[in-house]
C-alpha cells in the first residue's frame, strides 16, 4: 500500500513519513512537500519525497495519482482569508484524485475551543474560538462535502495535544515545568486530551491497513492521561523538578473566568478588551495628559474630585498587586482547565506501547531533544 503524507516536513508529517512503514511493514510512504527546502529534512533518510503543489487539481494529480491513501497533515497558515482559500483548494484537489481509496485528515482538539466546556461545545456542534480551530472545522466540513457520494473511506481525526520530541506541545510543557512560578490547576487531575506521537503513529498505521468505516474520531492516549501524568512524564524524562500543583480552591478562582470567556460572543470579548485597553491608557498617561486631567478636575465639584481620586487610586493599586502576583504566579493556559473532548474516541490498537522498554526509549528520545535546545552546550553534545 502506498501512502502519501502531505505536509511531510511538518511536526507530525515528518514523524509519520519516517516511521509509518516501521510501525506497519507493508506500507510504502511518500512524503509530499511544497518545496525542496521543506523536503530536505527527509533527504538521506531513504524515503521518497515528492515536491509539488497541492492547491490545484493538476498538481495534486501528478503528485498523488499512484497513491492508495493520503494522510493530510499540510496546513496553509498566515492571514485567515488567504490561508482558508489555500486549504480549501488543497482539500478539493486531493479529493479529486480518483485513485485514493482512503483519506485521513488530521483535525484538532482546537475545534472544541481553547477551554472545552462540554455544556457548550458538543461532538456534533463544536465551538472553536481560535482562527486555527475555525480553520480546522472548516476543512472537516469541506472534506465531507467534497467526498459525499464517493466510495472513498474518510477519517477525520480530532487529535488531542500531540506530545513527544520535536512537538510544540512538549516544548511548551517543558518551558512551563522550568518556570518556578507555574503550578498545575486543580492538582493536575483533569484529563489532558493529550496523545504521544508514537501512539498516534500506531493508530494511523492501523487505520490505513484496517477495515474501519468512515468516521470522525477524537484521538487521545488510552488510558486517557491526566495533566499531572503528562507533565510528570516530561519532567522524569528530562530530570527537571516535578511541577507544583495548584490547590482546588485556588483553581476554582480561575476556572469561572476561563469558562465565562469561552461563552462570550465576539462582540462581548471585543468590548471587554476595549475597556481593559482604555483602563491601561489611564494608568500610563503622560505628564501633559495628567495636567489636562487636573485642570478638568478643577472645574468639578469637590465630591466628584474625591470620587475620581479614590477610583484612580484603586486602579493603580489593582495594577500593582497584579504585577506582584504575576511575578510569583503564572496564570495557567486555558487548555489546562479544559473538559475532555466530548463524543466518540478512537479505539487505539493494542500494542506493546506501554512496555517499560518502549517507555524508557521514548523518554530517552525526549531528553536528547530537550538537551539540544535547552543549553548552549546542547548542539555540541553529540
Amino acid at each position, binding site marked *: 500500500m502506498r501512502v502519501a503524507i502531505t505536509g511531510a516536513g511538518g511536526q507530525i508529517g515528518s514523524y509519520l513519513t519516517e516511521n509509518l512503514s516501521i510501525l506497519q511493514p507493508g506500507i510504502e510512504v511518500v512524503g509530499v512537500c511544497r518545496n525542496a527546502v521543506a523536503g530536505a529534512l527527509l533527504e*538521506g533518510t531513504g524515503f521518497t519525497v515528492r515536491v509539488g503543489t497541492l492547491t490545484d487539481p493538476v498538481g495534486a494529480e501528478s503528485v498523488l495519482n499512484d497513491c492508495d491513501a493520503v494522510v493530510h497533515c499540510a496546513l496553509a497558515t498566515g492571514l485567515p482569508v488567504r490561508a482558508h482559500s489555500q486549504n480549501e483548494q488543497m482539500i478539493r484537489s486531493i479529493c479529486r484524485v480518483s485513485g485514493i481509496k482512503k483519506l485521513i485528515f488530521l483535525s484538532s482538539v482546537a475545534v472544541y475551543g481553547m477551554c472545552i466546556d462540554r455544556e457548550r461545545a458538543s461532538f456534533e456542534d463544536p465551538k472553536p474560538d481560535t482562527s486555527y480551530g475555525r480553520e480546522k472545522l472548516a476543512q472537516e466540513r469541506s472534506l465531507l462535502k467534497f467526498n459525499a457520494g464517493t466510495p472513498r473511506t474518510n477519517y477525520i481525526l480530532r487529535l488531542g495535544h500531540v506530545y513527544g520530541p520535536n512537538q510544540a506541545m512538549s*516544548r511548551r510543557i517543558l518551558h512551563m515545568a522550568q518556570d518556578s512560578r507555574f503550578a498545575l490547576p486543580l492538582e493536575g487531575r483533569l484529563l489532558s486530551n493529550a496523545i504521544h506521537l508514537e501512539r498516534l503513529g500506531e493508530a494511523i498505521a492501523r487505520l490505513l491497513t484496517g477495515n474501519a468505516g468512515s468516521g470522525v474520531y477524537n484521538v487521545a492516549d488510552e488510558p486517557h492521561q491526566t495533566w499531572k501524568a503528562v507533565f510528570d512524564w516530561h519532567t522524569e524524562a528530562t530530570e527537571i523538578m516535578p511541577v507544583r500543583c495548584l490547590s482546588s480552591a485556588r483553581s476554582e478562582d480561575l476556572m469561572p473566568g476561563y469558562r465565562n470567556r469561552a461563552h462570550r460572543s465576539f462582540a462581548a470579548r471585543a468590548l471587554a478588551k476595549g475597556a481593559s485597553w482604555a483602563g491601561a491608557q489611564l494608568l500610563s498617561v503622560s505628564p501633559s495628559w495628567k495636567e489636562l486631567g487636573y485642570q478638568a478636575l478643577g472645574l468639578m465639584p469637590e465630591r466628584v474630585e474625591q470620587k475620581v481620586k479614590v477610583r484612580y487610586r484603586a486602579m493603580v493599586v489593582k495594577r500593582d498587586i497584579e504585577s506582584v502576583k504575576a511575578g510569583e504566579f503564572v496564570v495557567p493556559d486555558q487548555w489546562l482547565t479544559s473538559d475532555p473532548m466530548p463524543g466518540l474516541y478512537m479505539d487505539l490498537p493494542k500494542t506493546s506501547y506501554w512496555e517499560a522498554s518502549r517507555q524508557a526509549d521514548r523518554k530517552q528520545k525526549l531528553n536528547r531533544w530537550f538537551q539540544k535546545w535547552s543549553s*548552549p552546550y546542547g548542539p555540541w553534545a553529540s
Partner: protein
Amino acid sequence: MRIGILGAGSVVEQYHLPVLSAMPEVQVEWVCDIVKEQAVALGKTYGVRRSYSDLNDCPEVDIVLVAIPVGVRRPSLEVIFERKWNVFCEKPFAGTAQEHGWIMKRAKEQKVEVGVGMMRRFYDATVLARKLAASGMFGSLQEVWASEGLRQRGTGRDMNWYQANADAAGGGVLMETGCHLVDQVATICSARSYKLEACAMEYRGGLDYAARLRGSLEIAQSQTCSFRIALSKTEDIYNGIMLKFADLQVRVGLTAAGGVALCDKEGKSVAALQQPEEGFHRGQVYAAFYREWREFIHQCRTRTASLVHADSVCLTTRLIEECYELQPRPRQDDGRFSKYVEPR
C-alpha cells in the same frame, strides 16, 4: 532622500516599506522587480507610484535598497554603480571576500556610499550585551557560545523560493542565518579579526542545513576569546548567545524581543538585565530597521562611516567564505554529517 527599491520580496513588504513609509525625511520613488506584477502590487499597498521590471528604466534616486538574492546581484549592482546611486544591501552582503572587495572598489570609484542591513546590531539586547562586554566590568571575555536553529516545520513557500536554490541564495543556513548570527557575535564582542580552527557542515540536496564552527576572535588589543557557533535547520537547538566570563555568564536572546540574563557559572539565571518580551510583538524589529536606515542616510549625507558601513561586515563575509571553502558542497551527497576538518 529619494529611495528606489530593487526586489519586491517579503523582507521589503514586511519591514523596509512599512518603516520607510513612516519616515518623513524619505520618499520611496519606485519599486523594481523582475516580476513586474509583484512590484506593482507592493507599490499599490504602500503608495509607491512607479514600478518597473528593468533597473535601466528607473528614474534617478539617491539610494537603492538592494533586496534580491545575493547570488544574482552583480548585474544590478553594475547598473547601480554606473548611475552613481548609493547602495543599501540586504544581508547577506556578499558571498565571497572577492565580491565584497569588488563592491567596495566600484563604490569608491563612483564615489558612492555602501551600507549593509544587519538589523540585529540594533536590537536592545545586542546593544546592551556589547556594552557589558566592552566595559570589562565582568573581567575579560573568555568564550562565546552562539547557536540558532529550529527543526524546519514548514516554510510557507512554493517551489520557486530562492532559498531552495544554492546559487541564488549564496548558500544554505550558514549564509542565510549564519550571517546574522556571526555578525551579532562579532558586534557584541567588538571583534577585530578571527581565526577559524574547525568547521563541519551537513549538506542535503546541495544546500547546507547545519553547520558548526569553532575558532577564536581578537576582541581588543592582544585579547582573544574562543567562539563556537552552531546553526541548524534539521533539529531544534539552543537559540541564544552565551558570553562566558571567569565567574559568570551573560546570556543574550537573538531576536528583537530577546532579553539579557545574568547567570552564575553553571548557567543558572540570577537576574534579568533586560526582560524578554513575550507574545506577538514586532515593535522592536521595526525600531531596528528604522535605526539602520537612519544610520545609512546619515552616512550618505555626511560621507562618514556609520554603524552600517559595508566595511563593518567584512569579517562575517570572510569567515563564512572560509567555511564554505573548507567544507564545499560534496559531489555525492549522502546526507551524513561530515567530519570535523582543520583548515589547511
